[in-house]
């Protein structure tokens, strides 16, 4: 009897057992980087031996992630409701939303550590990690509620709020919960990245960073496992909750664009006003927040302060030179890593059309990585791959590959069988089927995956540069912390956010053009 007849969970267990077995063998014989990959048994033993250290680190990370999760999601749901009920607000807030989605958390982590104190940086970064996912899920959930049921409410004189109360919120609940499911690992990741940025004695990030220098692979792996365990627990808790509320199926990935409302065309000057305020809003918020927090102007750079630092001060040319040199190192790596990660994911997702069994076996592994604070595990890769440029590429590929693969593979699953069978009925071979149907049908998901991975790729590169190679923007950020070069910390943060937003916008524009020409809708 074939394994293919086993139930899904049994096959997943079998795969897991196989992976563990191979890992154990590889670890025991020190086959990878002379012992940098310890066997699972050693990791477990070390975890037990270190257990005394863990409670306080776990508690600190949980606190930052938990409070951030709560605040971030509350704000996100409130914002989502506002955007869904009054679409104009969503257009004004678009710049802010994209900036929050695209900002590499590691870049603003030092700023948060400078301007806030105690646990606040962790809470903010965890909250930021939750915001976009949950906000988008809320908007999508609310706007996709049954229009007829909304009509019934309106036919009895109910207004927007009545429709929200009686129809929309409840029908959005499963979507919001699946958003929370993705937000949970993001919160853990945010807290850990803020811990990398400095401040505090406790936290898994602090522990991870502290253990990196001591070359104790088994301990590092233990910390990584615990961090993943926490994130996975939260992920599955919300998955179970969503399952209990709605026995239907949900997508695993979450849409990464804000829906634009199809309302009446506005006059050009209004359009321009909306776009201008959308761009200005993030800068205004930056300014206002600094004013409200009363951070000394030496440390906190306002937009004009940063302009002065980069263009007007006598030291400006030196600062510019450093920044450009770092960019020249970071950008190519980001692009190459992202393209490789996406290409691999695309190839593997397409091959699911040829060898469905392989992908079905691989899918659970890819899904599990969705629950990992993957970027936070960079120290493990550093340990295994050393500190050369290769580590940057590996990290970038791995942080882009998995989410891109999940997005595209699930998208391809939605290609109707009938569409595949039409060319087949005319005798087309598998490659012709791919070319005629699967590749074009997967384009929307390729774009969705690209949008999703742009910020992750930059984040991956910067973390690798910070922790391992000592090059590029990541290193410049880390160095400037040491030199207390506040202007440069702000400059790196702002520039990396801008680059990320710019990449994102380029993808959006290309996507609209391409899909528009093909008459396809963009995948949310």
């Amino acid at each position: 009897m074939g394994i293919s007849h086993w139930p899904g969970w049994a096959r997943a267990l079998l795969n897991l057992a196989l992976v563990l077995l191979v890992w154990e063998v590889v670890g025991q014989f020190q086959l990878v980087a002379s012992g940098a990959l310890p066997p699972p048994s050693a990791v477990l033993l070390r975890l037990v031996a270190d257990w005394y250290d863990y409670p306080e680190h776990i508690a600190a990370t949980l606190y930052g992630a938990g409070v951030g999760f709560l605040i971030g999601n509350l704000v996100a749901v409130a914002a989502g409701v506002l955007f869904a009920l009054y679409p104009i607000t969503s257009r004004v807030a678009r710049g802010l939303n994209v900036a929050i989605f695209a900002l590499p958390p590691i870049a603003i982590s030092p700023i948060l550590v400078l301007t806030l104190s105690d646990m606040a940086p962790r809470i903010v970064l965890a909250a930021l990690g939750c915001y976009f996912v949950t906000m988008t899920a809320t908007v999508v959930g609310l706007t996709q509620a049954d229009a007829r049921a909304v009509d019934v409410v309106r036919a009895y004189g109910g207004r927007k709020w009545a429709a929200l109360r009686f129809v929309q919120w409840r029908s959005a609940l499963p979507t919001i919960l699946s958003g929370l499911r993705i937000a949970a690992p993001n919160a853990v990741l945010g807290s850990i990245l803020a811990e990398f940025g400095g401040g505090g004695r406790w936290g898994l990030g602090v522990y991870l960073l502290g253990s990196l220098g001591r070359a104790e692979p088994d301990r590092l792996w233990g910390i990584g496992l615990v961090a993943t365990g926490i994130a996975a627990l939260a992920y599955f808790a919300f998955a179970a909750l969503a399952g209990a509320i709605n026995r239907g199926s949900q997508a695993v990935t979450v849409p990464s664009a804000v829906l634009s409302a199809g309302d009446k065309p506005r006059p050009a000057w209004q359009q321009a006003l909306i776009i201008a305020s959308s761009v200005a809003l993030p800068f205004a918020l930056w300014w206002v927040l600094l004013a409200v927090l009363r951070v000394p102007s030496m440390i906190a750079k306002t937009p004009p302060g940063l302009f002065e630092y980069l263009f007007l001060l006598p030291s400006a040319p030196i600062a510019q030179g450093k920044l450009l040199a770092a960019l020249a190192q970071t950008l190519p790596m980001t692009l190459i890593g992202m393209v490789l990660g996406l290409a691999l994911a695309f190839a593997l997702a397409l091959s699911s059309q040829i060898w469905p069994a392989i992908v079905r076996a691989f899918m659970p592994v890819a899904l599990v990585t969705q629950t990992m604070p993957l970027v936070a595990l960079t120290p493990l890769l550093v340990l295994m791959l050393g500190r050369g440029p290769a580590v940057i590429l590996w990290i970038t590929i791995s942080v882009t590959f998995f989410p891109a693969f999940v997005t595209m593979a699930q998208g391809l699953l939605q290609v109707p069988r009938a569409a595949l069978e039409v060319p087949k009925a005319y005798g087309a071979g598998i490659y012709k089927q791919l070319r005629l149907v699967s590749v074009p049908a997967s384009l929307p998901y390729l774009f969705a995956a690209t949008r999703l991975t742009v910020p992750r790729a930059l984040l991956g590169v910067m973390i690798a540069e910070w922790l391992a190679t000592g090059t590029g923007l990541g290193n410049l950020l880390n160095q400037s912390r040491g030199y207390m070069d506040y202007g440069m910390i702000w400059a790196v943060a702002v520039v990396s956010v801008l680059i990320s937003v710019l990449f994102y916008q380029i993808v959006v524009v290309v996507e609209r053009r391409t899909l528009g020409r093909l008459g396809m809708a963009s995948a949310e």
Partner: protein
Amino acid sequence: MASGIALRDVSRTFVSRGQTTEALRSVSLDCAPGSFTALIGPSGCGKSTILRLCLGLDTANAGTVTVDDLPPAEATRKGITGVAFQDAALLPWRTVEKNIALPLDVLGLSLGDYRERIAELIALVGLNGFEKALPAELSGGMRQRVAIARSLVTTPRVLFLDEPFGALDQILRKQMNIELQRIWMETQATTLLVTHGIDEAVFLADRVVVMASRPGRISRIIEIDLPRPRDPALFNQEHFHALERQVSEALDGH
């Protein structure tokens, strides 16, 4: 004197992608209180638009619409109207009872005062024993009957039905028509029924309003002089067929 439903020179145009569609061009229609009017016409003739205008779900570009002498938005907010759509549009997470009670929630009425009414309605549409069932556990016909019961829960003076049986099979539809006539005769609500079925229109209505498209307008009004209560045997009578033919010819533009 109360006016039931009144449309005066109502026009509605839609603009999309630079193209203008005249859904309604100066339509006037009066439905006397307590009357049953059927609207019939090809797709896109604006019959559903009329219904949406009457319910305040849409607003006219020109002309006035009143329901019981009130602007639609006011009439709906006072609980004067009831509505059932083609798809039952039930909330999947509410039981049959709670779905029927939805208009009460929206209007802010006390559920306690309506317990008996809801039980009556469930009996009226023949769903005894399904009070606590969820929509997913019901057949299509049963769901539609829940929607009918929901449209009646406020004891509306004006009832709007937008192809309420459009998704049902022919046999079930005839049964529902007979039930609907009985319910209507008990409540005496002014009723406007949008339908695709000629037999359904002739069987139920006092008047059949035939519409034409591009632009949406009323092309002919046919009085149905069949005595009430009408029973299923009517479907086989010559006079019934003659009326059906009249409607059919009006639809073909004769």
